[in-house]
């Protein structure tokens, strides 16, 4: 490494931009999601599980219906005509049937790069 390369390196080190203040730390801490008490976490898990179970029951009913019927295109249409409004109604009453965390596994696009 020659002198001028060394001096550029030195210059960058000496003039490093590294802003640091406690105001920023407070800002980050304020923006962190609030901690939930254990009871609230349990309630949330129970609600999510119940909704997910409702979704599974609807899918199971549709599947059994398909197996019991003539298994043609018409029965698929009939099942979808039952399934879609049933999903929509259940989601309206109970909230989203499939938790976002599960949806993200299937469809990970969006702002969250992870």
């Amino acid at each position, binding site marked *: 490494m020659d002198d001028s390369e060394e001096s550029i*390196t030195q210059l960058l080190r000496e*003039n490093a931009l590294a802003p*640091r203040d406690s105001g920023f730390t407070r800002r980050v801490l304020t923006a962190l999601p609030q901690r939930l008490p254990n009871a609230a976490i349990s309630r949330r898990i129970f609600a999510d599980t119940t909704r997910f179970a409702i979704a599974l029951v609807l899918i199971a009913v549709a599947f059994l219906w398909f197996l019991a019927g003539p298994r043609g295109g018409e029965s698929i249409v009939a099942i979808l005509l039952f399934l879609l409004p049933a999903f929509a109604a259940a989601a309206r009453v109970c909230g989203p049937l499939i938790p976002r965390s599960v949806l993200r596994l299937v469809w990970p696009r969006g702002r969250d790069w992870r």
Partner: protein
Amino acid sequence: MLIARIVHADDRRAFGELVQRHQGMVRGFLRRMLGGDADLADDLAQETFIKAHRALRTYRGGAKFPVWLCAIAANELRAEWRRRKRRAEFSDDEAFDRPDTPEPGMQRDIATGLAQLPEAQRAALVLCFEHGLTHEEAAAALDCPLGTLKSHVARGKSRLRAWLEA
């Protein structure tokens, strides 16, 4: 130790300590990459720390913590560029950012000189020389091959030197 306190006890004071320790690097890197737009850089830095807090359980210590943090910051930057319908990756094109720097003298010259560089070269120089990452660490943080990183460093240094001497 701090990380263990955050993960196991959700100790927010410990997380504050972590933010205090590493904010200089994250905010400095983002400001340089955004041509001195301090407000946007701080917004992205905040988002970086929030994502780090959420993902801390998955941090296994394979990479040094600052490198891991820089990788999140670099992803935030890419996401911001994507949002702006700009470039999705650190391009090797000419940079068009003009720094908004209140610093006088050499500080301003360095900021302006860095802002002239293509983003990939700027990111490499800032991480390696301003924040002391090794070439391997910077390559990991920017998710690029080591050879590419080294060539960005060499080309960036020579362009910056030429600009400062002009």
